[in-house]
Structure formats: structure tokens, C-alpha cells
């Protein structure tokens, strides 16, 4: 940065004034000198008011309007505009900065005839000249930023140096020094950069990448895989089991079919078997029925009483001996033929009588006798035909007498006869069937049952296969697909996280670089500043007896002699402050040479040094040495001096001076005016 000119209008002591400053490399000094209260300090304040709208110095008297105008020449309702304009160069750009404030004067209401102003807030305008010289207005909201780039506000006290108040570290806050160094060397930007890359810095880069990470629970992933394996195995078992079942089903159906064909081929035998079984069952039932009829018949005899009781016993004993008798007895009512039977008793009667019914003589031992004896073997022992006849007679008679028991005897006899007949029929039929089925040992009914069971079993197993193939296996496949999808998501998250970890590795690496460079810069700055401050201090003082030790944390310097801290005189303090400012300018100009690797932030800055009465407390020799050394440090030096100090310094400074102005007033005005000296 180099200040080219300043133009003041109605500002304090100044009516309309403009001065140009030296900008050449070899003659870099501009001197403004004058007596006390002529406006030297006001000129330096005008710089600050223009650049920063800094009005701290004017708080006790905020009316900036030129006194000549205010005291006598302001007409009623007149508007006075106070302005300061600075032209400067910075990084190849030209800037015109103008700050102006309007004061509107009204006649006082108290009738004293005076006028009082109402002041408006100052406005600041900036034009930026491109390297081609084209002016571009800077939007008002950007003016502060542009000025911060040119000369940061918190450096103003160092580069617009108030020598009369000698403030550098006695008045200014320690943090101000620290801020100045940090700002010149861009340490604040470096630290802010680190904050963006540091771990656990909420809402910044590290935190941002960390927050994008997704869950990649390995245990969960393994659990998914385990379940996938289990379901896959289960499906394999299902398929294997189904294959087995299908073979079983095929076998069962085949066997059932064979049985069914066998059944069909033996349909007649089945009928006969069924008939056989039915008739055997009927035979058994009929026999039971017959026995029941017989029992009841005998009971009926007993209940009839008298002679019939004996008959019953006889009948019973005979009936059990020969079933034919039952038949014959059953025929009693319809066939009397059977009553004529012969018996052993009747043969014995013939033998006893001695004459056979054929007329032959019967003598014991003769042929007739032998014939009769032999015949006995074929005859019943008794002739009970007569008895039967008598029984029948009784039966008929008693029936006529409506004897209920006789009626029962008849009925039981008929049933008995029927059942005996049926037994004979069934026995014959069963014997016939047995003969027909002789040699056939199959059981068609059992075959049918077995075929049915096989069909049923096959169908049940087919249903199991169908359920397995339509529900269990697809269900498991669906679950497997779902689990694979979940596992893939975890896997994808893992890949994404790997990428984020890669970014984080770079974030860490950048933080590492930034931290190392910051520390390197801090160390380099402290060393360079301490060296330059000491070099300049020793040069100005003309002795290296006093060592200025720099605190690397707050950049304060403290004087030591022989290892002991000492107190400096006012003049020494001034020289220390000059040395410190020189050190700051050195830092700004040599950023690229301090603290290791360079980067964008290490582009050198070239600040002017505007000093208001810097030599107020210095001796002639001190001034001489200061004037010898200070121009070496800065590219532009603008100094306001009391006339007496000007006289002391001009000799030394003359080789560096390009422009020199004398501030003067005339008798008719309180205004100050610049008058360029002839060098």
C-alpha cells in the first residue's frame, strides 16, 4: 500500500487542501512540519477518519466543520459538507476513498442569532481502479472489506503512529499487539483453517465427514450371513426331502395302481368272497335263531304240562341227536307219513311174538331172527311214532281249544323248520363257493384297503411336497433375498465409509500440515520480530547493551540488561516503539521468508508508515539515528514534525525526502494550509 495524496475539504483547520506524497523507492519520505496546534495531528486523524470513519478523537468536539466557516460565514439553512479523500495504490489497484459528512445549519431558537448544525452520519465512497485505469465503484457494503484487505483496522495504531502519546505497548492492550502481529502474518486465517480440519470441531469438515458415516455393524452382517446359510441349507434339505418324497409317491401310486388292477381283475372273486362271508355270517345267525326257536319250543312243551312234559324231554334228547328229526317234527302237521316208523322195540316185539310181519317164523338163531337182529342196527331204539302221533293229536286238540301255548308251539315249529331249511341251503351254498374259490387265496377287500391307504399316503406326501415347493422354499428364498439385500446395504455402507475414511485421512493430513506450518510460522515470526526489533532498537539507540526480549505469546517486548529486566526512559521507550513498528513492517514485507514453507498467505504486504511527531522525546543523536534507520524499513514514510524536530532531522532525512510541506496559517484566518518546501 502506498498513499498517493490526501484532499481535505472543510475539515477542521483545513479549508480546501490537497497534498501529494512521495511514492518513489529511493526518496520515500514525505515531511509535514509546523508549529504546535497547526494541524499535524489533525492531518493524521483525517487519514483514520477517511479510511475507518474513526471519530474517537473527535468525541469531545464532533463538529468537524472548519471553524472559519462555522464562526462567521455560515448562512441560515446552509448545508456544509466536510470531506477527506485519499488516493492510494494497493496490489496493483488504485483506490479513491472519500468520506464525507453533512452538517445542516439552523438558526438557534433562543434568539441569540447563532446557528447550530444538525449532523448526519458520515458516508464513505470508494472507487477502485483496475490495472488498466478503469474506475469501478465499490458497493458501500463492500467498502469495509476492501479497506480491511488494504490495511486492517486493528493495525491502524501501528502504521498511523501517534508519537506524542507514545502508545505502542504502554497504552494499547496487549491483545492489540498480538492481534496486530496475527493479522499481519495471517495467523488468524491459519488458525481458522485448522479449526475446519480439526477433529471434534462441531459443524466443520471433520465433523461433516464423520456425520455422513453409516452403521456397518459387522456383527449384524455376520448374523445376516448366518441366517442366509441356515435358510439355504434348509432349502437344500427341503429339495432333497421332496425328491425322496416324490420317489415314495411314485412308488406308492404305482403299488396302488397294481393293486387296483389286481382288484379289477378279480372282481368276480370279490363278489364270491363277499357272498361267502355274507352267507357264513347268515349261517351263524340262522343257527343261533334255530337254537332259539328250539329252546322256545321246548319251553312251550314244558308249559303245556301233563303228558307233554315227558314228550318234551324225549323230544329234546332225540332232537339233539339227529337234526333230521327236527325236520320231520316240523313236518308233523302236513305229513303224517313219518309216524309209521319201525324201531328196535318193534323188532323185539316181533321176535317175542315169534312171527315176522312177512309171516316167517322167528326162532332164536334162525335166519329171520338173525335178519331182524341185524336190522336193529339201522333202527331207532324206540318206536316213538305213536308218541308223536299222540302229541300231534293233543296239539291239534289243544289248538282247537285256543290254547295259546299250542299256538306258540306251532309258530316256533314253523320258524324252526324254516331256519333248519335255511341252514341246509346256506351250508350247501357255502360249500359250493368254497369249492369255486378253491386255490384262490387273495383278499380283494384287503387289497382295496391297502390301495386306498397307499393312495392316501401318496396324496398326503404330494401335499407336503406341494407346500414345500409353493410356500416353504419360495418363502425362504424371499427371506434370503431380503437378507442379502440388507447385507449388501451394510456392505455398501462399509464402502461409503471407507471413502469417507479416505477423506478423513486427507482432513487429518491437512490439519497436520496446517498445524505444523502454523507452529513454524509462529516460531519464525517470534524469532524474526525479536531480531528485527533488537537490530533496529540497537541501531537507533546506538548501543546493543539493552536486549529486548519478545514474549512469543503476546509479542510484548521487555528490556533486559545483563539478564535483568530494566525500566526504559521515555526516549528509550519511544525508540523501542519505533523499533517495534519497524519490526512489524519488516514482518509484513518478508512474510515469504519467515517460518518455512510459503503459501498464498505469505504474499508480502507493503505498509506505509505515517508517523505523527515520532521524535518528540528524542535527542539530536537519537533523531539522527532514527532518521537513518527508519527509511530502510518502510517503502513509504510520512512524518509530521514540529519545526524544531524538522530542523534536527532534515539533514539526515534529506537524501530520502521527495516532498516536504510546511503547515502555516495567516493572520486573517484560523485555517491551516500546506506549502510545499523547496528542497
Amino acid at each position, binding site marked *: 500500500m502506498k498513499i498517493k495524496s490526501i484532499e481535505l475539504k472543510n475539515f477542521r483547520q483545513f479549508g480546501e487542501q490537497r497534498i501529494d506524497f512521495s511514492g518513489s523507492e529511493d526518496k520515500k519520505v514525505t515531511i509535514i512540519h509546523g508549529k504546535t496546534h497547526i494541524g499535524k495531528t489533525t492531518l493524521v486523524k483525517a487519514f483514520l477518519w477517511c479510511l475507518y470513519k474513526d471519530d474517537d478523537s473527535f468525541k469531545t468536539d464532533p463538529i468537524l466543520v472548519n471553524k472559519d466557516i462555522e464562526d462567521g460565514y455560515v448562512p441560515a439553512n446552509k448545508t456544509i459538507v466536510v470531506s477527506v479523500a485519499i488516493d492510494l495504490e494497493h496490489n496493483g489497484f488504485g483506490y479513491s476513498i472519500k468520506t464525507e459528512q453533512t452538517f445542516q445549519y439552523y438558526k438557534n431558537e433562543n434568539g441569540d442569532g447563532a446557528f447550530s448544525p444538525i449532523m448526519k452520519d458520515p458516508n464513505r465512497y470508494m472507487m477502485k481502479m483496475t490495472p488498466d485505469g478503469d474506475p469501478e465503484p465499490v458497493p458501500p457494503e463492500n467498502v469495509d*472489506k476492501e479497506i*480491511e*484487505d488494504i490495511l486492517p483496522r486493528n493495525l491502524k495504531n501501528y502504521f498511523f503512529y501517534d508519537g506524542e502519546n507514545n502508545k505502542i505497548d504502554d497504552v494499547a492492550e496487549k491483545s492489540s499487539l498480538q492481534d496486530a502481529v496475527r493479522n499481519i502474518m*495471517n495467523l488468524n*486465517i*491459519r488458525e*481458522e*483453517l485448522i479449526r*475446519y*480440519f480439526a*477433529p*471434534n470441531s462441531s*459443524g*466443520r*469438515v471433520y465433523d*461433516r*465427514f464423520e456425520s455422513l458415516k453409516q452403521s456397518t455393524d459387522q456383527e449384524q452382517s455376520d448374523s445376516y450371513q448366518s441366517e442366509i446359510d441356515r435358510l439355504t441349507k434348509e432349502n437344500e434339505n427341503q429339495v432333497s426331502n421332496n425328491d425322496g418324497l416324490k420317489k415314495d409317491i411314485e412308488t406308492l401310486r404305482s403299488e396302488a395302481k397294481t393293486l387296483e388292477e389286481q382288484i379289477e381283475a378279480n372282481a368276480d372273486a370279490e363278489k364270491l368272497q363277499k357272498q361267502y362271508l355274507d352267507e357264513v355270517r347268515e349261517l351263524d345267525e340262522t343257527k343261533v335263531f334255530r337254537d332259539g326257536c328250539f329252546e322256545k319250543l321246548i319251553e312251550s312243551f314244558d308249559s303245556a304240562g301233563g303228558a307233554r312234559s315227558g314228550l318234551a324231554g324225549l323230544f329234546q334228547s332225540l332232537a339233539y341227536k339227529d337234526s333230521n328229526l327236527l325236520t320231520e317234527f316240523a313236518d308233523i302237521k302236513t305229513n303224517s307219513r313219518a309216524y309209521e316208523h319201525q324201531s328196535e322195540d318193534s323188532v323185539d316185539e316181533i321176535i317175542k311174538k315169534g312171527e315176522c310181519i312177512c309171516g316167517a317164523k322167528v326162532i332164536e338163531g334162525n335166519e329171520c331172527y338173525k335178519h331182524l337182529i341185524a336190522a336193529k342196527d339201522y333202527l331207532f331204539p324206540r318206536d316213538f311214532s305213536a308218541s308223536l302221533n299222540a302229541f300231534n293229536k293233543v296239539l291239534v286238540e289243544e289248538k282247537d281249544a285256543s290254547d295259546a301255548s299250542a299256538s306258540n308251539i306251532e309258530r316256533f315249529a314253523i320258524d324252526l323248520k324254516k331256519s333248519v331249511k335255511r341252514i341246509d341251503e346256506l351250508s350247501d351254498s357255502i360249500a359250493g363257493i368254497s369249492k369255486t374259490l378253491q386255490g384262490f387265496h387273495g383278499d380283494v377287500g384287503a387289497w382295496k384297503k391297502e390301495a386306498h391307504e397307499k393312495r392316501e399316503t401318496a396324496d398326503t406326501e404330494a401335499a407336503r411336497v406341494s407346500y414345500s415347493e409353493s410356500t416353504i422354499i419360495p418363502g425362504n428364498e424371499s427371506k434370503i433375498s431380503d437378507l442379502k439385500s440388507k447385507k449388501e446395504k451394510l456392505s455398501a455402507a462399509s464402502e461409503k465409509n471407507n471413502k469417507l475414511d*479416505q*477423506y*478423513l*485421512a*486427507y*482432513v*487429518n*493430513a*491437512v490439519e*497436520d*500440515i*496446517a498445524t505444523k506450518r502454523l507452529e513454524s510460522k509462529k516460531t519464525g515470526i517470534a524469532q524474526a520480530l525479536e531480531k528485527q526489533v533488537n537490530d533496529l532498537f540497537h541501531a537507533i539507540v546506538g548501543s546493543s547493551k539493552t536486549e529486548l526480549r519478545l514474549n512469543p505469546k503476546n509479542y510484548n517486548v521487555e528490556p533486559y540488561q545483563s539478564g535483568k529486566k530494566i525500566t526504559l526512559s521515555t526516549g528509550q521507550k519511544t525508540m523501542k516503539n519505533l523499533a517495534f513498528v519497524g519490526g512489524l513492517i519488516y514482518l509484513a514485507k518478508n512474510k515469504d521468508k519467515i517460518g518455512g514453507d510459503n*503459501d*498464498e*498467505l505469505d504474499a508480502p504486504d507493503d505498509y506505509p508508515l505515517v508517523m505523527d511527531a515520532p521524535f518528540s522525546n528524542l535527542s539530536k543523536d537519537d533523531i539522527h539515528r532514527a532518521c537513518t534507520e527508519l527509511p530502510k524499513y518502510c517503502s513509504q514514510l510520512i512524518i509530521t514534525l514540529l519545526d524544531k524536530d524538522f530542523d534536527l532531522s532534515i539533514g539526515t532525512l534529506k537524501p530520502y525526502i521527495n516532498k516536504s510541506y510546511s503547515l502555516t496559517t495567516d493572520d486573517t484566518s484560523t485555517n491551516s494550509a500546506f506549502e510545499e518546501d523547496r528542497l
Partner: protein
Amino acid sequence: MAWMNLTQKETIMSNIVEKEKVVEIYLESMKIVRRGLRNGLTKGDITSEIEKEIRGVVDRED
């Protein structure tokens, strides 16, 4: 990786990052932070710009 000691951290980083890219990110991020501070960008805006820069440089196949 904040929990690691310096040696572990440097060993791992030297294996997985390219130093040229690290320096490039560092320098570009510095510009972003400087411009962001100058123009009054929010922390979120600056973070987004740096994040974009990191992704761009790291993912770039040289």
C-alpha cells in the same frame, strides 16, 4: 483417528494419502477460508466448499 498417537497417525496417513493432493487441498482450503472470512460466509458455507474441494481432489484420477 484422533485417538491415535502421532507415529501411528503419520504411518497410516503416509500410506493412504498422496502428499501432493494434501498440499493442494491445504492451499485451496486456505483460499476458501480466507475468501469466506472476507465475504462473511457462514461456517456451513465454508465447510461445504472445503468438503467439495476435498472430494474433488481426492476422487480425481491423476
